[in-house]
């Protein structure tokens, strides 16, 4: 049994000045995530998924328990993680290319090499943009792109510094069904190429089952993990799979847990 890459040990978090009055946004989360695996967390709204994300990124410190990444406790933002949000959050004054390059201007060791190695970085960014179907759009500004294209650029930005861990906070939540499925495949391909860890928080059960190795179902108030489901569907997975009985069965099974937590 290998050492897990990401570990949650009895993690609870409460907001406000008196964290110990028993009202937790998330409560007693225990997770062991293997290196290179893709996990998804699903749950009804208000189940503390965003809190979970903030703790994992190190933007917030948990009130109880601890989170270990690569056997080291998370004390602040990790430079080897990349993140994409529900909104593309591209900077409107930067071109698509410059938006994608942004993390390299911040994160070491790229930061200190940035002016000298700029051409190498640009090359890398263009390749990445090309791989998500944005080749030729690098000079465009975000507002000249469609929502789906912006989200692709946002994925590129999350991956440009070759993070070991990709955090996705409902990344495709605001997209239409077709664009969404297209982006599932793009994410699937990026992940199977590079095998970084992915933690994806989502409302969409099909999305979770299609992409993830393990799906966790969270309950609401307090947020707790009530079910863990290993998705043993063979890879590579194609969209046809989502219409097969085996797939639908898993989705339905997960759905009953959501229903149960809703009451």
């Amino acid at each position: 049994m290998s050492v897990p890459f990401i570990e949650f040990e009895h993690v609870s978090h409460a907001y406000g000045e008196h964290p110990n009055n028993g009202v937790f946004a998330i409560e007693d989360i225990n997770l062991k995530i293997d290196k290179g695996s893709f996990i998804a967390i699903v749950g009804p709204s208000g189940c503390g998924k965003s809190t979970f994300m903030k703790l994992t990124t190190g933007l917030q410190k948990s009130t109880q328990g601890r989170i270990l990444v690569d056997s080291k406790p998370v004390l602040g933002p990790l430079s080897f993680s990349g993140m994409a949000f529900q909104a593309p959050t591209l900077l409107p004054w930067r071109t698509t290319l410059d938006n994608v390059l942004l993390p390299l201007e911040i994160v070491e060791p790229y930061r200190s090499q940035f002016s000298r190695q700029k051409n190498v970085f640009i090359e890398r960014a263009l390749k990445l943009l090309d791989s998500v179907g944005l080749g030729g759009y690098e000079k465009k500004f975000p507002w000249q792109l469609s929502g789906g294209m912006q989200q692709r650029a946002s994925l590129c930005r999350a991956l440009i510094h070759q993070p070991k861990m990709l955090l996705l906070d409902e990344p495709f939540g605001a997209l239409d069904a077709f664009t969404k499925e297209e982006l599932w495949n793009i994410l699937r391909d990026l992940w199977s190429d590079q095998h970084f860890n992915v933690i994806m928080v989502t409302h969409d059960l099909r999305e979770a089952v299609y992409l993830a190795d393990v799906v966790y179902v969270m309950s609401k108030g307090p947020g707790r993990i009530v079910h863990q489901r290993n998705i043993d569907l063979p890879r590579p997975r194609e969209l046809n799979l989502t219409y097969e009985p085996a797939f639908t069965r898993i989705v339905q099974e997960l759905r009953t847990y959501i229903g149960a937590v809703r009451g």
Partner: protein
Amino acid sequence: MKQATFVYRYPALLLFFVLILAWQGICVIFKVNEFIFPSPWQIIQSLIEFHSVILKHAWATFWTTMIGFLISIIVGVFFGFVIGSSRIAYDAFYPLMTAFNALPKAAFVPILVVWFGIGAGPAILTAFLISFFPIMVNIATGLATLEPELEDVLRVLGASRKDILFKIGLPRCLPYFFASLKVAITLAFVGTTVSEMNASNQGIGYLLVSAGSAMRMPLAFAGLAVIGVMAMLMYELFSAIEKNTTAWAHRKS
């Protein structure tokens, strides 16, 4: 057809000529005395007749205004940054600054004269006092309304406050900054002129007072026109810079 495109391209110029013609027409038809209300033609004549004097005073007003304006950019941007990036500074400074801004700046001129004597000193400072507020408020607003989502993009990468300020805060502020420059430059001209009227022997403000007391109304109006033109030119300059640097904020869908 050709005329219609002219209207759409230069509506301000067209309106200007219409107004001037109407003004001239009223003066001619009602035989208005030039000591009461000079016609545009009489103003133009005195512009030509006194052009060297006007030019001299206009130049004095111009550089005084520019120095005062420069100071107000520096001070306004600085305080805007302080107020915009800290909640406590915002709460502490803003009410006092608002109270200060409500004071009539013309009332400061006699005090400034006591401190700095007659001449450019009070004019520069009045221009500064009257024009730094909008710059400060706009910078502060630009920073204070920064979307937390955009900040998070950098924070998850472990960016420092300085990184966030330079990569997001500053560029995000630029449209606000340019908008404030356009307001502030016109105010700066007002400040300079008011001060020159009270305490100077140079500048358009001084020219206005002396022309008025000599009953040379066309000359006084010429002075006003020159200030208007200078302010408009500066406004257009900042407009052009704004269009070229912050096009992303002025896109049309």
